[in-house]
């Protein structure tokens, strides 16, 4: 007779478990070995950590359910107060005995819980180890300070055969209170490897197609997403969502199941697009499916973060642009940008050292209202009277959270603001009013000794162009190749103009 896999548990049950928990056999065996036979004591508290969707809750819950061990599963997200947590534990261990007899008082403390647990425990002593599973245990830290240390040594406090299992994505080091506490036993659930992901994902095949086809589809999907996302749940969702598109050429008869390359060419751009939309939750999966079915018309999929849906009044746009310039340019460079005869100011010399790092790396700086208005008047086309409507537009920009007020509300005479939009956003806004923001930004300024700048000077000396206002000039210069904003923003002193622009101007 061969030895049982795990003493105390029926072999077929254990085999069924291994079947149900693919690729988690090592973890399962470690857990079963730690738990020992049902009547034996287990370590008072076990802390299981691992990334999202590595099967922490699933393994534990399936294990306890299949082996029919007494357990209470509590998700800490649901527990807005400790009382709910206590009640769930007591109810799942003692059932009717708990509800009929003395219930917990209102706003129960840990002391009440322990007292009641002990009372009930005398009536119903544990014949098998009881398990309390606290899912998302990191939230316990935000509850009363005594709760986490209390649960960790619960076995000692209630004097019952009970084990607390904590599940979390965060490492134990972040949990330890100041003066320390009972150290739980740590167990790590590693991620599924690529091969394991492939194996699990290939399990849910489509009935109409062969498993090999689905498997090759999963292979393509992992090729696109694996370097970004290792979350099984997310990948599964994406796989299900994009499979109809993958099968399209098969249905129309354009390709056969063996034409792997053709299928791949068809689906790859689709998956890449999905990464920018569905994966980021920019569009819902319903929208995504609708868009896929609306074949033919070039329906550009717009996410929440695309800037085209923001519609602002004319002056508000200029106000926002002015605010952006005020936030990202040092105040003393204003002369250079907004004064006609600013004289020769060399870029590198007159700024302090800390001003040399790009503001686009450090973030927006606060500015006073006066400066905002001064820049606004110098950038806006027509003459605008400083009426109440302009001020009202400023405060509505604050309400829209495009600007944020940094000074206190009681400072009426000189409020300070910060611009809270991104460069891409402000470029989109500026395009609608025909204003070139990049030209007015100190971070994208040219170094004077570059040949590109010499070309620039040559252009301005040309008599014909002199009549053009500076804004239109700059607009022409940048009309062709857009300045690549996706390229890294260098420290200002190192900035190089994109080569193609300068070449063009030299001609």
């Amino acid at each position, binding site marked *: 007779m061969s030895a049982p896999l795990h003493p105390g548990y029926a072999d077929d049950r254990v085999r069924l478990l291994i079947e149900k928990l693919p690729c988690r056999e090592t973890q399962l065996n470690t857990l079963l070995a730690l738990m020992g036979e049902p009547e034996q004591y287990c370590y008072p508290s076990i802390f299981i950590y691992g990334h999202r969707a590595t099967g922490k809750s699933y393994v534990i819950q399936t294990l306890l359910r299949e082996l029919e061990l007494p357990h209470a599963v509590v998700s800490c997200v649901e527990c807005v107060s400790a009382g709910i947590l206590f009640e769930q534990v007591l109810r799942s261990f003692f059932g009717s005995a708990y509800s009929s007899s003395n219930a917990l008082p209102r706003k129960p403390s840990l002391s009440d819980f322990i007292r009641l647990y002990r009372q009930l425990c005398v009536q119903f002593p544990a014949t098998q180890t009881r398990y309390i599973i606290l899912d998302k245990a990191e939230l316990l830290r935000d509850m009363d300070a*005594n709760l986490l240390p209390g649960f960790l040594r619960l076995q000692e406090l209630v004097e019952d055969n009970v084990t607390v299992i904590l599940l979390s994505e965060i490492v134990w080091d972040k949990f330890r209170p100041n003066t320390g506490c009972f150290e739980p036993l740590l167990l790590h659930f*590693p991620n599924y490897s690529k091969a394991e992901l492939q194996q699990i994902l290939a399990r849910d095949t489509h009935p109409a197609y062969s498993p090999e086809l689905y498997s090759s589809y999963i292979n393509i999907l992992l090729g696109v997403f694996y370097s970004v996302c290792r979350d099984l749940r997310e990948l599964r969702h994406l796989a299900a969502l994009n499979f109809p598109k993958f099968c399209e050429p098969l249905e129309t008869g354009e390709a056969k199941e063996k034409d792997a390359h053709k299928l791949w060419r068809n689906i790859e751009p689709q998956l890449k697009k999905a990464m920018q939309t569905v994966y980021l939750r920019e569009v819902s999966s319903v929208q995504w499916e609708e868009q896929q079915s609306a074949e033919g018309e070039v329906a550009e999929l717009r996410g929440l973060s695309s800037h085209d849906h923001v519609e602002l009044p004319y002056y508000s746009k200029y106000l926002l642009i002015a605010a952006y310039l005020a936030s990202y340019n040092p105040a003393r460079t204003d002369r250079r940008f907004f004064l006609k005869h600013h004289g020769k100011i060399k870029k590198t010399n007159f700024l302090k050292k800390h001003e040399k790092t790009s503001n686009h790396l450090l973030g927006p700086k606060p500015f006073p209202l006066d400066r905002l208005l001064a820049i606004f008047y110098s950038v806006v086309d027509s003459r605008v009277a400083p009426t109440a409507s302009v001020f009202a537009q400023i405060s509505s920009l604050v309400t829209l959270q495009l600007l944020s007020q940094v000074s206190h509300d009681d400072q009426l005479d000189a409020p300070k603001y910060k611009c809270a939009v991104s460069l891409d956003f402000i470029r989109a806004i500026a395009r609608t009013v025909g204003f070139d923001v990049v030209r007015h930004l100190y971070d994208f300024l040219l170094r004077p000794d570059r040949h590109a700048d010499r070309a620039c000077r040559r252009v301005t000396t040309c008599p014909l162009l002199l009549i053009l206002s500076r804004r239109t000039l700059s607009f022409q210069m940048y009309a062709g190749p857009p300045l690549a904003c996706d390229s890294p923003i260098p420290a200002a002193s190192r900035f190089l103009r994109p080569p193609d622009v300068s070449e063009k101007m030299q001609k």
Partner: protein
Amino acid sequence: MSKRKSKDIHLPAGECLSQVQRLLRERFCHQQLPVGPFGFESQHKHLLELLKRTAVHGESNSVLIVGPRGAGKSMLLNCVLKELMEMNEVKKNILLVQLSGLLQTDDGIALKEITRQLNLENVVGDKVFGSFAENLVFLLEALKKGDRSSSRPVLFTLDEFDLFAHHKNQTLLYNLLDISQSAQTPVAVVGLTCRLDVLELLEKRVKSRFSHRQIHLLSAVDFQGFLRGVELQLRLPPDFPDRRFAEDWNAGVEALCEDKSAEAVLRKHFNSSKDFRSLHMLLMLALSRVTVSNPAIRPADLLEASRLCTSDAKANVLHGLSILELCLVIAMKHLNDVYEGEPFNFQMVHNEFKKFLQRKSHSVHNFEKPVVVKAFEHLQELELIKPMDGASVRSQKEYQLVKLMLDHTQIMEALQKYPQCPTDVKQWATSAFG
């Protein structure tokens, strides 16, 4: 196994091991130790004497037991209490009240608990008391037998004593220690704490009422003593049902303690911590590997257990990150090197990452900024990076200053073991500047 006839009972191997597991698990998980406090004989004697004086002669006392976590404070106290309760003259006489700073979080709850543990709920009834002290005195008064001389001594044990010092006005501590000073009811107050500076936490009026008697549990065992401790913990008692098996097991334990590799593991453990709790964790992990096919703890089991105990959790988490997230961590590492640990924001990290992509990367592709933001947020969720100031600050999330919570060496070590790490990413990490 053997067909030899003997007087002992022979159990099948599975049964024996089940017994072993039950017995040893009770030791490691439920603190039911085979021997008394190991290495703390003098402290044990001191405490026992002290409590006996209260119990028998009605002398009031207060004492603090101070020692690091897992050093055996509760174990020592429990041993002493058990011994005390076995004495005939004490058992009928003394009343025990056990409080814990974790449970009784304020003095109101503590008082209710005292009432309950003294079985005085019906005496108190619906009475309303003016002050805490009045209430406590009433409780102790109720315990008196009639004449002043023969009231029953009460033994208070306060686990996590330092937490009681945080209660408002330290009312409970004040009253308990006050009673222990005055010649009212005989009480003994035993506090357990892991804070050496616990007396600093006490208010002046509380401190002056404390007897300043402290028992320190600072383990002074050397490695040989530690090894003997391990052996004692693993040994089976002589009353084990199957004596042959017990002998085999004990011989196995002795062999284990003499084995070179096992000794190396234990020495490593001894050098990092001497306390009982972490030793129990190690032995528990080793014990869980004992099965019918492997009926003794081998050095390899101990090695494996120690590997589990000491594995670096953060490195484990790093191994599970996607390539993109790993790249961001490396970018942060470079920023940390360049700016000497100054906090940074997402823009800087992204900028650093893009520089890498432009110059050296062959295996990592360019990702849209929102995708990178998502990866960054995931790192924040995992608390590998931590925002400098609270979330209340209204600033764009790209510009919120964060700090990397990882060590330089941690990152490099994790990178070495990262499954299928592209070589250019590895090179980028090891290169001195960006």
